């Protein structure tokens, strides 16, 4: 049945080469943990991607209940956490996944760094990778405010003061982030929400596409 459906579409659109191009590629021996167990270090990039997928999916479902408004944000989080079926699990996935993704991206960076895999011709991919790391940190920073509890509020307060410590343009950066020169409040929350669910994910997807296209063009760096 499925095969027939596939064949019907494939006959008309010739889709096989599209997915073969993505899915069919040999894993070099030095990258395969079945040959050398130490090759598990090559897993961290893939694990980062896997956790990112979990973050995107769980985040999409969380927005079904969350409201970015200072009156209702905390209540909506409390509601989805305590009243909604599996809400605790899904928010738990997003909460813990946020930390796990930083750990994974860091381990991946360490591997690339200590293997010298960033060297010519892969310098550009290193640059994109570092940008991805910053985007991830931005996602962590903006997402932290959203539950609008005390921890979120004061962590953001501190984060904004750090931004303010930038020479010359610091005050402007802070105002731009918080939406108000003095108050961390209603406008800060909507800004952080917009950045967290629209702007940074858009940047993330674009950079990830570049990252993956480059690695497929250049291949994985050779054995040490």
């Amino acid at each position: 049945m499925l095969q027939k459906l596939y064949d019907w579409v494939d006959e008309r659109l010739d889709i096989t080469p599209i997915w073969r191009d993505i899915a069919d590629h040999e894993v070099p021996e030095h990258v395969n943990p079945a040959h050398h167990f130490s090759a598990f270090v090559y897993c961290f990039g893939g694990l980062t991607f896997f956790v990112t997928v979990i973050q995107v999916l769980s985040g999409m479902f969380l927005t079904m209940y969350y409201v970015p408004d200072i009156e209702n944000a905390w209540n909506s989080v409390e509601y989805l956490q305590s009243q909604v079926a599996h809400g605790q699990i899904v928010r738990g996935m997003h909460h813990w996944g946020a930390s796990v993704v930083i750990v994974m991206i860091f381990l991946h960076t360490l591997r690339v760094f200590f293997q010298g895999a960033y060297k010519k011709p892969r310098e550009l991919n290193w640059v994109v990778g570092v940008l991805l790391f910053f985007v991830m940190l931005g996602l962590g920073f903006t997402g932290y405010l959203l539950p609008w509890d005390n921890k979120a509020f004061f962590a953001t307060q501190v984060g904004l003061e750090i931004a303010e410590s930038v020479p010359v343009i610091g005050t402007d950066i802070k105002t731009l982030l918080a939406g108000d020169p003095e108050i961390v409040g209603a406008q800060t929350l909507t800004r952080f929400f917009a950045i967290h669910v629209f702007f940074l994910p858009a940047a993330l997807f674009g950079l990830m596409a570049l990252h993956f296209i480059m690695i497929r063009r250049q291949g994985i760096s050779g054995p040490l």
Partner: protein
Amino acid sequence: MSEKKNNQVSRRQFLNYTLTGVGGFMGAAMIAPMVGMAVDPLLKADSSGDFIYVMDVDEITEEPQRKSFSIEQQDGWYESEAERTAWIFRDENGDILALSPICTHLGCVVDWETGNQDNEFFCPCHNGRYDSKGVNIPGTPPTEPLHAYEYRVEDGRLYLGRANPRGGA
């Protein structure tokens, strides 16, 4: 020999099945709680609701009277007072009827005697008509009579609950 080989699962097939199975299981374990969260409104049991005092029984006439009352509404994390309206009257047997003004066609609000006919409920959206008992008049858009509120009478006071379909027509 070759016949036997044909029935065997090849290494590649075995691996394919195993990976699809394990991967599918892991994916399902990941997605299941998220879907559960999305369909939560379907899983919630609907609350029966309180009965609210609306008017005194001896004030009820044969002519429908429009009465408003407010109920405590819990909408997820948001609590509010929601306005409800009822058309309250006695039928020829002296039984109390409290009708919801929500048109059974598409949910507009009906009014008493605002159409061309006297003694009828009328919905301005698509000219829906109901007779004096709130039963829809055949040939007009509504498909069933106006819903009726559950009611209770205590100490000569009328209390209304939720509006339910009446069936018929």
